[in-house]
């Protein structure tokens, strides 16, 4: 509780009963009944009425807002056509199986790329953190990699990898389109995630490193046991944010040929000239990303609570 956490008055008032809980009820030990003071009762009543009032205002304003938007949209002259071309139930049902089948491919790409990206990102972040002069080439390479792949639009990376690598006609280069797509996404997102990790590592106070070194831990052990555990915990929300983004970008792999959700939707749209199939794809992506977004919020809130905010 926030501003009203003065202890309530104890009726029994014996020693050992000074720290009183917020709410009444029989206490362990059962000696004497704790009664809320009148002030506390009044306080709770006021709080409840405040909560009721704000909830009802929120409800009313939401209803007014929705009614307003819906009435404006549905009374617009073009609405019947929009409804037919974007919210067409028949088309929705027709497109769903194909789009769903494509969506499984999106999920597959996402699940394979995810761990790879984490590994690449972490390694690159660590490489950028090495201070020894002998390792300068590695550090420079890591910096170059993040600069290049953060700068190039993901769709271009996919395009160049997807069409460029096979064009080399080398032995051992994968030709499977999904593999190529995963490679491209990993390269592109690895750069973002590397930066996230690096900012996490740099956010750990130097005194932590100093303390670890004074205990006799070397650079590697300091990183492994002191810095990284704290850094990863700090960067979980931005990491999850990047993964929500990755889930959507799996659709870009369509440019090199495989039939994923968005492409399947596009095929339906082109054959019927009706956009409802896009709506199907959009809904599937939302269904996938919302849980992750809520989970991110939950983690952030938990972190705040732990810090005692």
């Amino acid at each position, binding site marked *: 509780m926030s501003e009203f956490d003065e202890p309530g008055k104890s009726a029994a008032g014996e020693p050992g009963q000074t720290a009183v809980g917020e709410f009444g009820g029989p206490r362990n030990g059962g000696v004497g009944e704790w009664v809320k003071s009148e002030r506390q009762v009044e306080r709770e009543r006021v709080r409840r009425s405040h909560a009721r009032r704000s909830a009802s205002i929120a409800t009313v304003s939401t209803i*007014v807002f929705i009614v*307003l938007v819906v009435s404006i949209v549905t009374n617009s002259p073009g609405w019947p*056509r929009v409804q037919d*071309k974007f919210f067409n139930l028949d088309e929705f049902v027709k497109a769903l199986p194909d789009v769903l089948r494509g969506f499984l491919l999106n999920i597959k790409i996402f699940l394979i790329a995810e761990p790879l990206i984490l590994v690449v990102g972490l390694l690159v972040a660590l490489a950028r953190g090495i201070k020894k002069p002998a390792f300068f080439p590695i550090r420079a390479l890591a910096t170059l990699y993040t600069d290049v792949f953060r700068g190039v639009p993901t769709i271009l990376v996919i395009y160049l990898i997807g069409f460029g690598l096979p*064009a080399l006609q080398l032995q051992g280069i994968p030709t499977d389109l999904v593999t190529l797509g995963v490679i491209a996404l990993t390269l592109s997102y690895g750069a973002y995630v590397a930066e996230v990790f690096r900012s996490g590592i740099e956010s750990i106070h130097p005194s932590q490193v100093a303390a670890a070194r004074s205990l006799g831990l070397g650079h590697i052990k300091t990183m492994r046991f002191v810095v990284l555990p704290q850094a990863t915990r700090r960067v979980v929300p931005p990491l999850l944010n990047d993964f929500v983004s990755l889930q959507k970008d799996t659709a870009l792999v369509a440019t090199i*040929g495989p039939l994923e959700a968005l492409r399947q939707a596009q095929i339906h749209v082109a054959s019927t000239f009706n956009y409802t199939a896009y709506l199907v794809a959009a809904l599937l992506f939302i269904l996938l990303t919302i849980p992750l977004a809520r989970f991110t919020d939950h983690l952030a809130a938990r972190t705040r609570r732990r810090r005692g905010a």
Partner: protein
Amino acid sequence: MARPLMLLALAVALVGCAPVDNTSSSASPIASASTACTKDQLKLVNAGKLTIGTDKPAYEPWFKDDDPSNGQGFESAVAFAVAGELGFDRTEVQWSTIKFDSAFAPGVKQFDFDVNQVSITPDRAKAVDFSKGYYTVKQAIVAIDGSKFAGAKSLAELQNAKIGVQVGTTSLEAVKNVIKPADDPNVYNEQIDAVNALKNKQVDALVVDLPTAFYVTAAQVEKSKIVGQFSSTGGTPEEFGLVMEKGSALKPCVDKAVEALKSKGELAKIEQQWLGSAAGAPELR
């Protein structure tokens, strides 16, 4: 009490963008067949000009040098011929770039008609108006000479081929409905992507319309050949049509123009000039 005020402001803002019926389309075309199709009576997007839409890049043999306004290439020539029938000279025609996807979006169109190798299908006709067909199209299969599927003598032999097609084309439907390959086809945004995939050996064969196939084998992919042609639809021939807004008042006039070009033999002449004869590609069944 800022909240009610803000809500009020929001409401006002919303009402501010309240609907105004500025769409020119009404559900029933006003133009009856008897209406004279003279230039000044046509309902145009831009007054005094005939605005024709097509996609970019515009590929040969339909357009030349990615420039629809030069009158070169089959569709450019057809479009100018239709414009001529409607009474527009070449300076009164303007082209606008319309992506395939936006050609059939509901709402105000940025073109009087769109010419983009769009096949007429009953499903599509629910969303847009098509002119009468101006070209009867066949599908063709292209493969690298000497490759596994280059010698196929029937569609059944292509069952196990990895096929590449461009998205939004009826070629894709033809692959799904007629060839029915074991593997899903690879689908590309642009024709050039599909062609590159063939070069890279990422696909065994392309399915494109026949004129495109001739162009691919002649100019885009060395050592490639047309394996054969086939019909994507069982009975009715597949035709390209000009795309117009649903309920477009222009439709009767554009139809008349296409009919006139057909009966005069003008269309056949343009076809001969730009698409040559489709002989030499064996028919596959």
